[in-house]
């Protein structure tokens, strides 16, 4: 393979290793390549044609032999070819398709799709490190490191965190593939920048995380019932939306309730409304009797407004691990509502009231809270945030191991994606159908990823990137449990 010394307009001396040539019909965004060596999927390539300097990525890689073909049916034939004739040592062909990511000029890291496809015979080189660094590791404010390029481990991958706040993010993968590690990494990096992040921790995975020089604020999942609105209380008491008279009775009581003894006052009020609302008020009373003990676990009159529990510049972890899904749903939806409101006030008051600075909110196990099949309180609130969050500086990070269970409306509004390994074809197709940044050819690569390897897509990266995500050592729980060691220990202790 030849190495070509080339001097470009920026007087950068690029040592270019030729990988192969473009063959056949190509398109501005896609081309076929015949190579001298096996191509690695996700490998970055570089081409120059018609004054465009183009970065491309290997999409599919094929290795074949004109002799050891798939019409051979006797393994002894292959054995003879490989061992006796020793064909196997000699000739293979390597080809594949490359996805053209864009052309660049000047020193900008931005890529633009060239209007002209590469002509057949165009030389294709391994992308030089200087170019890759410029694209994937921009030295600009707001870019944070999340890992390295999978096929070029010495090139850092940096993401634009501003775009996560304004365009939201979906982290999708099978369980155990590194979703929570990526969340922990983003949380750590955001906190290092002085930013605020709120994580709804359904499994208590993040509570033990203690990064150096970063404040972690573990928040008890309690809300003040006096801050709840009618809709939230009705939902907690399981009062259906069409039970108008029950809701009317409840509304009147909530409006007249004092500053303390929420349940006692509410019950008293409802008893007084029986004359007016008859059985409807009685039904609400019955509901309170049934759910009172259950609700006391999440309601506390002594608790401040949740917006006041958020520590700015810290990792705020709302520990939902002790709660049932319904309780957790009530907590998350209330937090989302109050945070959005507080942030709105913050923007309108120029930071003198409410939450003064932008923040990120992470919803773990999002398929349970933002379900495609069930109406949850969180779904409605999350919908508001993905619609309005951009204006008020609230970014939503949706984390799920079952993408097909996620609400398609919210999923389609996530402008950034980190997709780790997904094997289930239904999940793959669901993601391909509802997530704008992902394409079918990238979906096909998903089963080939290993733990901690992710495809990053959307505005937070310059080009689609296959990255090896950095491991957050401070996050000690959340991994698989070594059951045998536990059993072994208990057996001999």
């Amino acid at each position, binding site marked *: 393979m030849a190495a070509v010394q080339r001097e470009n307009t920026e007087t950068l001396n690029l040592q270019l290793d030729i990988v192969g040539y473009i063959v056949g019909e190509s398109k501005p965004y896609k081309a076929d390549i015949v190579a001298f060596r096996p191509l690695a999927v996700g490998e970055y390539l570089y081409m120059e044609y018609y004054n465009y300097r183009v970065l491309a990525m290997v999409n599919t890689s094929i290795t074949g032999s004109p*002799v050891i073909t798939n019409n051979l049916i*006797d393994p002894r034939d292959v054995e*003879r*070819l490989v061992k*006796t004739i020793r*064909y196997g040592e000699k000739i293979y062909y390597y080809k594949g398709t490359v996805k053209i990511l864009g052309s660049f000029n000047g020193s900008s890291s931005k890529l633009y799709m060239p209007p002209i496809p590469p002509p057949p015979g165009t030389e294709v080189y391994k992308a030089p490190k200087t170019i890759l660094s410029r694209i994937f590791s921009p030295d600009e404010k707001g870019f944070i490191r999340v890992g390295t390029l999978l096929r070029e481990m010495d090139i850092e991958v940096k993401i634009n965190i501003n775009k996560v706040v304004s365009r939201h993010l979906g982290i999708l993968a099978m369980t155990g593939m590194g979703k929570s590690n990526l969340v922990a990494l983003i949380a750590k990096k955001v906190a290092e920048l002085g930013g605020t992040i709120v994580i709804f921790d359904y499994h208590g995975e993040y509570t033990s995380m203690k990064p150096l020089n970063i404040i972690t604020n573990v928040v008890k999942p309690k809300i003040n019932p006096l801050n709840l609105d009618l809709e939230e209380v009705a939902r907690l008491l399981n009062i259906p939306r069409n039970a108008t008279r029950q809701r009317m009775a409840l509304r009147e009581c909530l409006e007249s309730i004092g500053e303390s003894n929420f349940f006692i006052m509410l019950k008293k009020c409802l008893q007084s409304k029986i004359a007016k609302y008859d059985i409807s008020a009685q039904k609400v009373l019955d509901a309170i009797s049934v759910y009172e003990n259950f609700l006391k676990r999440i309601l506390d009159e002594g608790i401040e407004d949740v917006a006041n529990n958020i520590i700015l510049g810290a990792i705020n972890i709302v520990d939902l691990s002790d709660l049932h899904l319904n309780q957790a749903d009530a907590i998350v939806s209330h937090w989302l509502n109050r945070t959005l409101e507080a942030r709105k006030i913050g923007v309108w008051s120029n930071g003198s009231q409410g939450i003064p600075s932008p923040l990120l909110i992470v919803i773990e196990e999002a398929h349970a809270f933002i379900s495609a099949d069930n109406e949850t309180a969180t779904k409605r609130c999350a919908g508001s945030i993905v619609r309005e969050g951009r204006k008020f500086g609230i970014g939503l990070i949706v984390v799920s191991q079952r993408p097909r269970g996620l609400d398609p409306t919210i999923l389609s509004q996530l402008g950034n994606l980190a997709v780790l390994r997904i094997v289930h074809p239904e999940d793959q197709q669901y993601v391909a159908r509802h997530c704008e940044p992902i394409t079918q050819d990238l979906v096909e690569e998903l089963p080939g990823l290993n733990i901690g390897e992710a495809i990053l897509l959307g505005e937070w990266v310059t080009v689609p990137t296959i990255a090896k995500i950095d491991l957050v050592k401070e996050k000690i729980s959340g991994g698989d449990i070594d059951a045998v060691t536990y059993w072994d220990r208990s057996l001999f202790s």
Partner: protein
Amino acid sequence: MLTQALDIAMTMSKSIKGKVDEILAMDNIAKIKSLWIPYKGFRNPYLKKLSIVAIDSGFNYKEYRGYALYALNVVYVTIDNIKGEEINGFADIDVVSCSNIENELSLLSATMEIESMVKVLSLADTILMDGSLIAVFSKLRRASLEDGHDLLESKGIESSHILKELIYAISIHPRKIVFISKNSNAKDVLGFVKGDIYYFERYTDGLPGYSKPIQLTCSKHLGMSTAAKVFRHVVKNIAGVDISIAVSYVRFEPFSRIYRLELPIEPGEDIDSRVKYVIDVLSDLTISGYPYPLMRADQIARVGLEDINRISGILGISYDPYAREPL
């Protein structure tokens, strides 16, 4: 095609199918079976590995108005114990204007194959030639007697000279040269309605082995036996040695296809052991029942339509008016 052709195919399907699936008398089946000698090739791993060369050629052409562009190449694949597989050959690309281009190119490719054979004769232990020795001999002999082979003349090739080269090569190394045909309509051994290959393929129970070899001078086909006698005579006249051609049909692997083997033999030579030797030598190199070096040579030598179009593109004559343009 006329629609009547389909009608005829339907009405005659039984009789035509009957010709394909010929019903053979028991005696004839017994005769075929008696001629088949089951044998599975075996190569002693302690013996010296042989260097085997396979030669094949391929050509294609594109007819323009008043001339034709052709591409022809000859490939020799060497399978060597030390070097592994080595591919060599030479190619000829030109334009020509002659009446029977197919025949001319076939003749040219035969001459080039012989030239290649002469070139590798001293380097190889066994040379596998694709096709039939008697057919090549007859073709070259006829060409040397005829006039008007424009293509050969334009290349300065004398068919009589090539014929002599072939005969010298065979006379000097008769045991090195093996001709293998993938298909044949010859009726030398059985003399039935169809070519021998049809019957051996159907009535030998898929057993690997070979048909009892015969001298081609004893062929049941009069024309063939005459041609074989002429060959013997010509060789004697030119090289002064007595060489004749033996023919056998072989199946290298169980249930695989049958191929026709032609071997130059010297008087008194045990033809049976010669055929067995060839089967043994090739047993290590047989892929899907066919010698790999020949398969590879054929694969590389083939000139496809895409190749000829690519050449015409390089020459800048892709859009020249071509022969069947009005259609």
